[in-house]
């Protein structure tokens, strides 16, 4: 397993009393990590830092495949990372249009866009409904669509913020299966935040903890 993302001595003030502190974090290619911790401990912020949506490093370093990420190059690395929030945004239009968005952005051919889109829709049980308006889906189905939409263009890193929250057993099973398929077939790395230890056990034994903004590379009971 080669090193994919590394964070060292990262500190960021989130408020006057709250600071995100990551002394040493590493994610390797094809690795699945679970991040746990109490509500409001900084799990979502941690995933945001990793997503490179914005570059906000004043203290410490972030490296991607041994290259230091900086203000000039962070956009080229974030193309390889995707992030799904707890309440994902579903774009207006059909389910098919939503699933194809990442493929279009990553310049897949027209045939691949249709083929890969339909293939993953089949895996999440939405192929027969692909022409329907995505905003009419239930929250659980929206979650399935959001995770599938993030995986379909084969990013190197997928960040999932509490992907199993508010989902039924069937959706949980489908999402776990999807994560395992992409991890096995495409060597995709995953980091997901969760409070659910049963689900964590099904996906990985590598559990990290964040308590009061401080990152621990081990599981700490809280």
């Amino acid at each position, binding site marked *: 397993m080669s090193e994919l993302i590394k964070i060292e001595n990262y500190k960021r003030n989130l408020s006057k009393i709250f600071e995100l502190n990551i002394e040493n974090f590493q994610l390797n290619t094809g690795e699945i990590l679970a991040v746990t911790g109490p509500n409001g401990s900084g799990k979502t912020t941690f995933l945001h830092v990793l997503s490179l949506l914005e570059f906000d490093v004043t203290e410490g370093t972030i490296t991607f495949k041994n290259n230091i990420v900086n203000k000039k190059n962070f956009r080229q690395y974030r*193309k390889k990372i995707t992030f*799904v929030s707890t309440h994902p*945004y579903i*774009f*207006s239009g059909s389910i098919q249009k939503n699933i194809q*968005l990442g493929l279009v*952005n990553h310049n897949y051919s027209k045939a691949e866009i249709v083929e890969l889109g339909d293939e993953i829709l089949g895996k999440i049980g939405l192929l027969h409904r692909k022409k329907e308006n995505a905003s009419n889906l239930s929250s659980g189905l929206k979650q399935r669509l959001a995770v599938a939409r*993030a995986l379909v263009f084969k*990013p190197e890193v997928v960040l999932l913020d509490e992907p199993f929250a508010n989902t039924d057993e069937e959706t949980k099973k489908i999402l776990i299966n999807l994560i395992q398929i992409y991890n096995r077939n495409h060597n995709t790395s995953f980091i997901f935040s969760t409070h659910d230890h049963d689900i964590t056990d099904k996906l990985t034994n590598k559990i990290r903890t964040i308590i009061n903004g401080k990152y621990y590379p081990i599981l700490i009971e809280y």
Partner: protein
Amino acid sequence: MDFFSEGILEGIKLIISGDKSLYSICFFTLYISIISVIAATIISLPISYLISSHKFRGKKLVILITNSLMSIPTVLIGLIGYGLLSHRGIFGKYNLLFTPYAIIFGQTLLALPLITSLFISVFKSSDERIRKTAITLGASQTRSFLILINEEKIVLFSTIMAGFARVFSEVGIAMMLGGNIRGYTRTITTTIALETGKGDFAQGVALGLILLFISFTINLFLNIISRKKSE
């Protein structure tokens, strides 16, 4: 029958008769208003997006100025436009004054702060997950901007229609920059002003009714759009 109701009756007769000059004035007004609003929209979209999505020094001042310019009097724009387009102005060599282009130029200036200001509000209040989700799915800055426009198209369109209503009903710019030349730069509002002054109340009323009808249609349209959005 009093003077007013007589005018309305004559006006309705004129509309029904399909008077050629009356309808050519209406089409000309619609044409220049649409072109002006399209031009203002094309300019406003990137500007308002940049203002709303970036942090920079003086941002609040820029927004304050834009908001203040929303209610700028049309005659003032007419005056500025006259200064720019007249023979002594910096664009004087293009001989645009008293042409339809001059009205389009002035009306674009009129719609610009209104549309920009409303677009800024739309972008500021839009769901921040739209841009973030687009980016995490690999969209470039330009593409995420286009996705945002697509997501907010209904609100943006109603904003454009508000800009259209503003330019469609204005008189100062059309009069000062167009010169109210018959068959060339005469608009609905300048004709109403002229014909009423000449005592031809019926023609003024006919055009006034058409103006009202178009304004009513725009408002009805906006109402339908906002209802659709809230659904």
